[in-house]
Structures are given as structure tokens and as C-alpha cells.
């Protein structure tokens, strides 16, 4: 299978302090990969690196033929101003940005696609509701509808199910499977190992460095989880020996 994203000796961080060190990994096209690891392991940082919001301190992220239009990103805590007077329809429509851009017209067929996306996430009937009146779960559905319209080859999700009810989670997992069936590459940062085992064929475990990457049942072992925790705890204490040497 083709590689869609590869990390080559990648070091990413903030203010020159590395959050991820010397990561070597390849994500194949069409794979459905969960990124797991303890708090502070660099999971969100890795996604920010792929979106280009964060530049590597060392090494590189090879995106091959992917451009900005091919990548859709759902941040962990999106800084959407929920008090802004925007309707569900308005916000979802923005998923068509790469077609309509800043100045383009929303054609009738595009409107049809917007309604389809809204119905796919189960929000039909709420099109004209202001986003400020939605529950957390409904808001996440809105953001998934927008992701659907972005029609991206690579979808990045940062903890999409945190603080979301079980019913919504189940519906949104369904959408992730749909993307997978359509051959899109999906990378999601997740905390719930049970959900990862049932829904994600591949897993990349991170603890500032790569712990393991491969089929989920080979990665999510008790041994790896223990190792990851130790690696991260070692990093949190000062003075410390970071990464694999500590484990």
C-alpha cells in the first residue's frame, strides 16, 4: 500500500522544547489509525505538525502529494466562538470552502450536498438553529458534517469523542467507518482503548517517542502501555532521562 504521510526523524515542539523526538513512522493510504499514549505524549502536537500549524524542529513530515485542500482537521478544543450568530447551515456550508472559496456562490447542487451532510450526522431540522443553542454532542455532529463536506483524502481528528455522549459517539464512529470504506486515510487521537480495539485496525502508540506502531492488537499490549507510562513519567521529573533509556 502507498504511504500517505511519513515522519522522518521528526522532532516537534514548542519554544524549542521538544514534545516529540525522533519519530520514524509511515501511515499508509486508506488506513484507519488511532494515536494513543499517556497525557503529554505529544499526540495533539503530532496532528498540529501534519496540518502545518507547527514546523518541525528537526527531521521532516513528508506529505507526498497531499496539499492543504486534501487535509481536514478537527482540533481538540476548537476555538469556535459559540456566541457568534451563525446557524448550523452557515457553519456546515463552510466545509465547501475549497469549492466556493472566500467569494464564490453556493450553487443549488452544493446546497443539496450541505443538506445531505446535515442529515448524515442526524441534525436534519436543526439547520436554522444558532450554534450557540446546541449541546456539546450536537456541536460535534455539526463539525463532523463540515468535515464530510471537506471531502479530504486525509482526516485528522483530535480526541473527537471527549465529553460526548455515547449515542453521538456511536453515530460519529459510523461516519469514520464510512470514510475508511471510501478509502480515505483517518488518523484519530483517542483515549478509550476499548473503542480503539473495536474500531481502529491500526494504532500508533506515542510517549514522546514512538513506542509501537502496527495492527492494534499487537500495539495495545499491557507491556507497551506500561512502557509508555514509564517513558512519560520519566520525562515529567527533573532531572530526567527521557524516552526509551528510562523504560
Amino acid at each position, binding site marked *: 500500500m502507498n504511504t500517505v504521510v511519513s515522519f522522518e526523524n521528526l522532532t516537534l515542539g514548542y519554544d524549542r522544547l521538544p514534545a516529540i523526538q525522533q519519530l520514524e513512522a509511515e501511515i499508509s493510504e486508506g488506513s484507519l489509525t488511532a494515536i494513543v499514549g499517556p497525557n503529554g505524549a505529544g499526540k495533539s502536537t503530532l496532528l498540529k505538525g501534519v*496540518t502545518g*500549524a507547527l514546523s518541525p524542529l528537526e527531521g521532516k513530515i513528508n506529505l507526498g502529494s497531499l496539499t*492543504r*485542500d486534501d*487535509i481536514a*482537521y478537527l*482540533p481538540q478544543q*476548537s*476555538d*469556535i*466562538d459559540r456566541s*457568534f*450568530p*451563525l*446557524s448550523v447551515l*452557515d*457553519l456546515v456550508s*463552510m466545509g465547501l*470552502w*475549497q469549492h466556493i*472559496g*472566500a*467569494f464564490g456562490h453556493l450553487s443549488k447542487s452544493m446546497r443539496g450536498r450541505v443538506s445531505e451532510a446535515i442529515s448524515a450526522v442526524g441534525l436534519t431540522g436543526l439547520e436554522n438553529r*444558532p450554534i450557540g443553542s446546541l449541546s456539546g454532542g450536537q456541536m460535534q455532529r455539526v463539525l463532523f458534517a*463540515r468535515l464530510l463536506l*471537506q471531502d479530504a483524502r486525509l482526516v485528522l481528528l483530535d480526541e473527537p469523542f471527549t465529553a460526548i455522549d455515547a449515542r453521538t459517539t456511536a453515530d460519529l464512529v459510523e461516519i469514520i467507518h464510512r470514510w475508511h470504506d471510501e478509502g480515505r486515510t483517518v488518523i484519530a487521537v483517542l483515549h478509550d482503548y476499548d473503542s480503539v480495539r473495536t474500531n481502529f485496525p491500526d494504532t500508533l502508540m506515542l510517549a514522546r517517542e514512538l513506542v509501537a506502531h502496527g495492527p492494534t492488537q499487537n500495539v495495545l499490549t499491557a507491556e507497551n502501555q506500561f512502557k509508555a507510562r514509564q517513558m512519560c513519567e520519566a520525562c515529567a521529573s527533573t532531572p530526567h532521562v527521557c524516552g526509551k533509556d528510562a523504560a
Partner: protein
Amino acid sequence: MIWDAIIAPFADFGFMRRALLGCVAISLGATPVGVFLMLRRMSLTGDAMAHAILPGAAVGFLVSGLSLGAMTIGGLIAGMAVALASGFVTRVTALREDASLAAFYLISLALGVLIVSTRGSNVDLMHILFGTVLALDNAALILLCSITSISVFTLALFLRPLVLECADPQFLKSVSGLSAVTHFTFLSLVVVNLVAGFQALGTLMAVGIMILPAAAARFWANNIGGLIVVAVTVAILSSVAGLLLSYHFSLPSGPSIILVTGIAYGVSMFFGPVGSVIAQAFPRAQINS
């Protein structure tokens, strides 16, 4: 009776008609910009920018007297300089935008007052601070209407990125490179409209017609189109009422207009259907309506 009170002042006096046209132009241009200032929680930024344009206008005044062109260009340069300088300081230092903007506008304001008072008379200072809506000449009206046209057109063109920049800046950054352009275009619109406003209402009052109608509209509408329509309507009606008050009771016109918008804001705050005092107190009535 109604004729005498409302129509006659405009029918009989050219200066009243000019003032009205000037105010309508400002309402159409500045008020929609004010709506976005409010939505971006930048209402006080508008106020700061209004003070920041003073030294530029003062220098223009010194160079060529009460010439609108010179004062406008001066005001534009000063406003842009303060906007860019504070944006720059925010990006390269640890100081936050509110503090850096406050620092620059205070320096700018002090400089402006100093320039006007060393070289001009107090009357001149009053002209710049409080405007001369009853003495707008043709050149001033053409300038006002041009600025309004440019402003409305630009806002229409940039509406989508501007809305996204306010509501979901992270998303705009992820799909488009227009983020910085949008921010700068918006700041330019603020400055341009304040400069237009200060010809008529003065630097201190210009920001009033920008912010107060927008704040009033927040209690009447909960979508952007509605907010803009309500805000512009409030601004135009307040201009008419303010001019009439100033005519009948010999009051200064700028403050009269702004005070009427203030009354509109007060009434909206209590009786508007969206989130007002009454609407919050009787939420059930809101659901049924």
C-alpha cells in the same frame, strides 16, 4: 405641526439636508463595521482607534487649515500607523493586543491634543473633537459618500472570510491563507469609517454611531444580516431625531445624535426580543413567540 417639527427644518435649510445626507452615509458605512467590532469583542478597540487618528488630523489641519482632504489623509496615516504598530508589538513581544493598543492610542491622543493646542485655537480643537455636521460642504459630502461606498463594497466582498475569522479563526487558517489579509482589511475599514465619521461627528463621537446601534441591534436579531439591518436602521433614525433635537433646542448636533442612539440602546436593552432584560426575565414568552 408634524410638518413644522419634522419636515420643515430639512425642507427649509440646506445645511440640515447636508447634515442628514452626511449622517445617512456614515450610518450605512460605519454601522455594519460596528456590528463586526461588537461580534469580535473589539468595541473598545473602535474607541481607541478613534482617539488614535487625532494627531494625523491635527497635522493635516496645521498644514492646510480646515481642509478635509489633508485632515482625512493625516487621520488615515495616524490610524493605520497605530493599528500596525500595536499589531506588530503584539506579535513580537509578550504584551497582549489590548495593552499595546492602549499604549499607542494614548501616546497618539496626547500628541494630537498637543499639536492642536500649540498651533490652533480652542475652537479648532472643538471642531476636531466634536465635529461640524451642520457645516458639511460639497467636498466633505462627496468624501463621506465615497468612503461609505468603498466600505460597503469591501465588507460585502470580505463577508465570508470575515465571519469565519470572527467565529472560527482556526478553521479559516486551515483552509485558506486569507486570515491575515482579512484582519488587516477589517482594521482598515474601521479606520476609514472613523475618519469619515470625524468630519461630521468629531473624533470622540464618531465611534458612537459605530458601536451604539450595533449594541442595540444585538437585542433584536440573532443573525448577521438582521443585526446589520437593525443597526443601520437605528443609526439612520437616530441621526434624523438627533438633528431635529439639535435644531429645535439649539443643542450641539454630534452629541445629540449619539445620545439618541444611546436611548435606542437603552430601550432595546430592556424590551428587545433577544436576550434583553425582559426576555431574560420571561424566557417562556420567548419560546412561544
